[in-house]
């Protein structure tokens, strides 16, 4: 496996990247980032969940892949919300 970058490598990478113009940069005010927040049916909640590391990494990779493809901010919450919505009927039945 290729050597993973350490802290010093990360400093140099981000410093070099910061010298480039931001992607999609245009003259005038910077555009607001596309919303990637999950859409709920009402009030939003922020909480913590505990899950196996490999599943967390998978969710994270999916969120990054979707952001790369569709633009906007990577959002693990949005991935989770979509998964729950897809199974909502089944979950509602189980909850009674």
């Amino acid at each position: 496996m290729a050597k993973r970058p350490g802290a010093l490598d990360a400093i140099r990478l981000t410093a070099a990247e910061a010298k480039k113009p931001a992607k999609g940069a245009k003259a005038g005010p910077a555009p607001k980032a596309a919303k990637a927040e999950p859409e709920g049916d009402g009030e939003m909640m922020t909480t913590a969940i505990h899950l196996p590391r490999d599943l967390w990494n998978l969710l994270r990779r999916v969120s990054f892949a979707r952001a790369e493809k569709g633009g906007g901010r990577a959002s693990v919450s949005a991935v989770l919300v979509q998964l729950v919505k897809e199974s909502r009927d089944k979950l509602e039945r189980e909850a009674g």
Partner: protein
Amino acid sequence: MIVAVANLKGGVGKTTLAVNIASALASRQRVVLIDADAQASASDWLTAPAGVDVQAWPLEDASDREILSWSNRVRELDAAMVVIDCPPHLSAVTGAAIGLADLVVLPCGPSVADVRATARSVELIREARKVRKGKPAALIVPNRVDRRSTTGKGFALALAALDERVGPTLVARQAQADATASGQWVGGYMPGSPAAQEVGELVRVVEQMLRRA
């Protein structure tokens, strides 16, 4: 503007400080608090005050591409102020945060181990300055200090030897511990308390340094 709260040692009060700084700054602008620690402690316990958007963005065992993707997303955030709570070790995400930050805040407790870790953190910041035209600025914050002890009294002087700016001292106070236990920042939990006033003074110094960054 981007503020990273970092130290290569755990248990020095990074998360508490990051939460307090973000919450205090949120009274005047939109703030995004990025929890970059895989332990997700900031996003775990905080009941975010109005104006603070808490995002859990850990980055472990990352490739070059993932580091760049993470840092570009930080740069593209739609917020006047971004505060990054870094993990307690020498990692790519700590490096990325230092590579992005205008200011790095380094909490340091009154112990030899904390001071040594802070010194190593300062070395990392100086490496960043070589490729970032003198950025980021650094502010060492004496944290959880017992003023009554001999160690406490000489502690700020010992930190001055690291040759970086040393900020206002945060004294070990019960109010902060209680605020943490209740999931709030100290200014929201006990406004006007000595602990809240100390945080307020610290944030004034942070804002002053950011204006000069």
